[in-house]
């Protein structure tokens, strides 16, 4: 697979480290149901067959964590954008 890194251009996915689903948000530790929230955050996944937003780290390139949109049935990649903030200059 070639991942279109927004910083480096298309690169083979071997340059990246995969983490998984990008949708779970780290819970607020002040959340009253913090244990359940963290349990879900750490362990529960929707795991869809279809479009998937997922985290990849461009380990051999620009060291950016990216959110890549990819279809898990076809591996077609429709986009990649920096995760979290866009750039330190922003």
């Amino acid at each position, binding site marked *: 697979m070639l991942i279109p890194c927004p910083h480096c251009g298309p690169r083979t*996915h*071997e340059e990246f480290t995969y983490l*998984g689903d990008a949708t779970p948000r780290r819970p607020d530790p002040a959340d009253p149901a913090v244990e359940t929230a963290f349990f879900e955050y750490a362990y*529960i996944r*929707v*795991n869809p*067959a279809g479009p998937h937003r997922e985290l990849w780290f461009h380990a051999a390139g620009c060291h950016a964590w990216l959110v890549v949109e*990819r279809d*898990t049935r076809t*591996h077609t990649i429709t986009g990649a954008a920096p995760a979290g903030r866009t750039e330190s200059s922003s």
Partner: protein
Amino acid sequence: MARRYSIFRLVGEALRGHRRWEPAWRDPEPKPSYDVIVVGGGGHGLATAYYLAKNHGLRNVAVLEKGWIGSGNVGRNTTIIRSNYLLPGNIPFYEWSMQLWEGLEQDLNYNSMVSQRGVLNLFHSDSQRDAFVRRGNAMRLHGVDGEFLGRDDVRKLIPMADFDNARFPIRGGLLQRRGGTARHDAVAWGFARAADRLGVDILQNCEVVGIRRERGAVVGVDTTRGFIASRRVGLACAGNTSRVAALAGLRLPIESHVLQAFVSEGLKPLLPCVVTFGAGHFYISQSDKGGLVFGGSIDMYNSYAQRGNLPTVEEVCEEGVALFPCLSRVRVLRSWGGIMDMSMDGSPIIDRTPVDGLYLNAGWCYGGFKATPASGWCFAHLLATDQPYVAATAYRLDRFATGRLIDERGAGAQPNLH
């Protein structure tokens, strides 16, 4: 009703031009309702149905398969069976499975070619040696066979491995002689035929597309062949578990990943046993037909595509040639992929779900083929009695919440590292 297989019958049929063989399993129309429905005609689903009928006398049972039986991972794995596990939650279960394998052919009256040729895990460093010793000792304490081999013993067994120029020299191995391989398809077919003989309906091309509930309890499933009623539904759909469970509103500690496997052109006997490479992720054995069957790690990203990519192909071949330099001139004949239900701690789940009447058999990662008989046995026990079978008590769904994880690799909640 199908008749028994034997050499006498084979010769007799041969004399009659093989015209009288009956179908290995019937092709029935779905009944309106069943006592138990098992979703997934893979090894686990078929074994579950067989043991429901055989051990629990439940014969009004259907196995629903979206394609043809055996089209999932049972038909695409590298066929390694073993019980050389490390953790107390796992060893009794896999050993139970090993014991069932040992009597399976006679039990099923089907030759699934269980071959106890041995499984050799190589180690390449002192700390790896210690880890294998830890594991071997855990096995021995559980009454499981295991032998420690030094470098010279290993060399006697597999002289063509790289002992002279390796980046990670072989320092020894852990051998489980009772481990080995079984003929993947025949396992599915053998369970299917035996279950069918006990009255189980095997319904192919019957995809579950909905799970109907009333007052929180399951009442049946919608399928591509219509609604089928049942108050007990067991899921055994391997890589598709999340999709099917989602039909009942469940989200699970599972990700689906693709694992590739490879077979070489047929060769005269080369490898006496199953060998795993400790300085990477590679395992290999030789099928009775002569093909070298091998694989490595998963492709690392979520997938339902049932096929993998070239980098993994190359990586696996790098490992194969690094371990056995003579394989360099051997050709890969075919490669394929399977979708695995990678759980968050790398271990399976056999448990009830929060939905009444819906039961779960999942999270087998890429090690569930060896589990087939015991998985079926334990899941049948759970479906029939609502109680976990002794060997599978650790495989609870709530362990992720409680922290009673069964993490053989210590990789944590990241499925692609298990």
